[in-house]
């Protein structure tokens, strides 16, 4: 036993460090439920900010939803927006500080229900911001009600017999719609359920921030996420449920990778 302990001691030395928590994350214990995807995405954003060296130039906008307290964890300046209004708040910041990095962080209720108008118009204007979209197909914060992204048949507290299209309409694929807008530069859908997915998602978030630096238009990153509390599954089973049920409806990958459209395509003739 002590041989093993000695061997571990040999390995645990500063020069052998390969992963440690980013200094852009602070030491507050996150309020999220065990296994919540919000925590992973927070970490990726912090790592990207750290690696790009832009902590002093970045302003985040947190939503109303479980991630309302995002501002507690990532050590940058933040504004907390009203429910759904983060894209407008981010627009206000970016317009007066065009050379800073500005990102919004929103859940599906925030971004795709109450804030749909703000979301669409920010992207349509091609605001040079990053928008991070956590799609967990449910309202986590308020106790698991139906979200616009809730799947047909999915049980939530306001669809106790499953989402029914006659009553509730269809799961909203807002990311597909946003990719159509000429102001969108980079639109991608990612997930964070396993190490490979996490690494890809991090690359996508990094790319989104780089697109912002180039002022190419809006960079939009959806992360298909779990809400084990809302779904009433444990975190590991939540990942399985997500892979089985969410991915067919919300397929992963890039939806757009260019830059905002050329205005001449839309210009009047006379």
């Amino acid at each position, binding site marked *: 036993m002590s041989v093993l302990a000695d061997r571990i001691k040999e390995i645990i030395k500063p020069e052998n460090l390969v992963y440690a928590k980013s200094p852009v994350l602070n030491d507050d214990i996150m309020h999220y439920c065990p296994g919540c995807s919000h925590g992973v995405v927070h970490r990726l954003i912090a790592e990207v900010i750290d690696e790009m060296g832009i*902590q*002093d*130039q*970045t*302003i985040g*906008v947190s939503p109303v939803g479980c991630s*309302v307290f995002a*501002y507690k964890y990532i*050590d*940058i*300046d*933040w*504004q*907390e*927006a*009203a429910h759904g*209004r983060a894209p*407008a*708040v*981010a*627009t*206000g*910041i*970016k*317009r*007066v*500080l065009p050379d*800073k990095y500005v990102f919004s962080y929103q859940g599906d209720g925030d971004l795709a229900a109450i804030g749909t*108008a*703000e979301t*669409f*118009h920010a992207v349509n204007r091609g605001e040079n911001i990053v928008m991070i979209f956590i799609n967990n197909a449910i309202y986590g914060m308020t106790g698991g009600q139906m979200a616009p992204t809730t799947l047909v048949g999915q049980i939530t507290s306001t669809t106790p017999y499953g989402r029914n299209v006659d009553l509730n309409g269809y799961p909203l694929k807002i990311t597909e719609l946003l990719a159509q807008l000429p102001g969108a530069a980079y639109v991608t859908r990612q997930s964070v359920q396993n190490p490979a997915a996490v690494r890809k998602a991090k690359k996508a978030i990094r790319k989104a921030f780089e697109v912002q630096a180039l002022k190419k238009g809006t960079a939009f990153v959806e992360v298909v996420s779990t809400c084990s509390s809302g779904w009433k599954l444990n975190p590991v089973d939540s990942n399985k449920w997500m892979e089985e049920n969410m991915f067919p409806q919300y397929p992963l990958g890039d939806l757009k990778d260019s830059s905002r459209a050329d205005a001449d395509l839309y210009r009047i003739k006379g």
Partner: protein
Amino acid sequence: MGELRLMKGNEVIAIAAIRCGGDAYFGYPITPQSEVMETLMAERPWEDTGMVVLQAESEIASINMVYGAAGCGKRVMTSSSSPGISLMAEGISYMAGSELPCVIVNVQRGGPGLGTIQPSQADYNQATKGGGHGDYSLLVLAPASVQEMHDFVVLGFELAFKYRNPVMILADGVIGQLMEKVKLIDQRPRWTNEQIAEISGSWITVGKSKNRKKHVITSLEMDSSIMEGNNLRLQEKYNRMKAEEVRFEAIECDDAEYILVAFGSAARICQKTVQIARKKGVKVGLIRPITLFPFPEKIISEYATKVKGFLSVEFNAGQMVNDIRLAVNGKTRVEYFGRMGGIIPPPDEVEVALHQKLIKG
């Protein structure tokens, strides 16, 4: 120095916003104030002063853009008319709760609902008693001339930053559309980053340097005892406004037996009513509240022991009259006269009302 121009009230709002060194305007068209943004767009201040002007997709978006930009320590404003202000109510409450400075102009029209595009003062309660949720107050300025439309933009920004609080300019369609002579301030430079850091460096979100703690603009607090403390701090601020910022005009009140109380365009009409009545030998005065919050309650309560009655003249169903009654506290009679739906009564109609409601009654 002090260029003289003949301008519309709405246009002058735009010019004053540029000239006082405003950083940004976000708005959405609505009659009777669309000229504010139209003038700004025609002036293109972004080419000269660097001021941002953006047409938002709604008043909800406008006020939240104002929130974002104000959180960066910038001088930001928006303007709208009654239905649009209702849509902004949530954002205004958030700004008050987060203690963000800004100037909001409401060129009131008649309601409720879509109502009418004709002038009105029916948003008095909304402006002075909140309008959004929670215990908060705006500093409310009521212009009665095109010159005041101009001056209150400049003053509004000063007060907004002095108190870190939204300031509302509660105008109405009459003042917005009125054309008058106005003396404009000379162009002032926008604040530099250094000036912004000096004025608001302790709270703005502009990117945190290594040696300072992060700044968070928020109205959220889950700990009740801290939240109560935040509320008490806000109330203390509103009390300071009450002590320091009351503004009013008292016209021919010294020997008055009856006093009219009116703000904005109603005060212009009442000024004529005072002249008509005095020609007939009736000693009438006028108190014109310039700040609606804080309300000039002290001067009204002082006159309450000297006059036979107050008549509140408002273009609404009688809103300010309640604040007058509170100030008078039963010491003398307080009556209301007003018209609604966009009707502006002429001065002699007010004089008749004064007779019927106070002198004869």
